[in-house]
């Protein structure tokens, strides 16, 4: 502890770092982002609780997106069931099994990029591990974050999981066809809660069953490809 009295103790040297702890993930994410931009591709990090309907959103997208070339990576702790579901509707997909990890990171996504010819796609959907916490803090190199929130999860989810909803460029409220059976779910309250955790949220009400919101969702995706979709651009004219 001592530098001056000659007692032989080592000196304590403070080293200022001031770096993000996840800096190495950020670097790999930036590398992925270069890949995506180089290929002229939009990459979507699709997050949400297990059972929020993420895979159903993508199945519906496949049926309704016309000539666009879609691809997907699906993250789960075990099984490649989601990837199989998406292949069945014509989306080339790679399953990423994380073992016990609760989120995807930029390295896992990069490794999966090498497993398929991703550079011929218009849209790459990265379906993250179902979880409303951990995936929010790992940049994957995505063009945009989309969070799927199903109406059956209740209107207070944004207040309970502010970290996740803060990073959402778009919130897809899924399963809205079930609303007539959920008398306690007030959409107004859900919108108000979202506005308290993310500034100017862009929200689309969606149903894979009735088809509500599908057109709007696809238009939003197309807007990302041409640089028109953004978060602030949609908030009642208050674009910045």
């Amino acid at each position, binding site marked *: 502890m001592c530098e001056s009295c000659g007692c032989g103790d080592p000196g304590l040297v403070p*080293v200022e770092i001031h770096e993000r*702890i996840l800096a190495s993930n950020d670097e790999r994410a930036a590398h992925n982002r270069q890949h995506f931009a180089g290929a002229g591709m939009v990459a979507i990090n699709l997050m949400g609780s297990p059972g929020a309907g993420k895979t159903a959103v993508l199945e519906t997208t496949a049926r309704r997106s016309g000539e666009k070339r879609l691809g997907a990576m699906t993250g789960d702790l075990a099984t490649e069931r989601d990837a199989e579901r998406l292949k069945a509707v014509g989306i080339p997909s790679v399953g990423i099994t994380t073992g016990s990890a609760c989120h995807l990171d930029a390295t896992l996504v990069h490794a999966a990029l090498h497993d398929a010819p991703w550079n011929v796609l218009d849209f790459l959907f990265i379906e993250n591990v179902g979880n409303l916490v951990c995936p929010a803090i790992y940049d994957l190199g995505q063009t945009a974050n989309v969070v799927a929130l199903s109406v059956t999860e209740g209107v207070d989810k944004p207040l309970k999981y502010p970290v996740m909803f803060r990073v959402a460029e778009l919130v897809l409220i899924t399963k809205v066809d079930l609303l007539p059976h959920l008398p306690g779910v007030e959409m107004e309250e859900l919108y108000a809660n979202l506005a308290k955790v993310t500034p100017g949220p862009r929200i689309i009400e969606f149903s894979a069953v009735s088809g509500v919101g599908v057109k709007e969702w696809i238009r939003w995706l197309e807007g990302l490809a041409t640089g028109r979709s953004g978060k602030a651009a949609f908030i009642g004219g208050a674009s910045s």
Partner: protein
Amino acid sequence: MHEYSVVQSLMQRVEAEALAHKARAVDRITVGLGELSGVDPELLLSAFELFRQMVPLCRNAQLQIREIPAAWRCRVCDTEISKGEVLRCKICQKPAQLACGDEILLDRIELEVP
């Protein structure tokens, strides 16, 4: 429990820095955690307790956490928007932006250097 993977990244960075300085040991590690970082201080500490046993240079290191409260401000007029309110400036009608509170930072380390 992504705190384990956060601590893993932290330890790699700290160990590399300690080796670069030819340190005998790491005495203290200070990190900054934002309220909206998604990282829980208690869980980070317990993950650290486990991981430091595996890194000889960090075996006796202390982890100090600087908690950073979240603050939202108007991007135009800089007015602060209180927690729990709609994140839009009442004056400018513009969406707020996060001024601080999402940090997951390695601030500094203190090394025992012979």
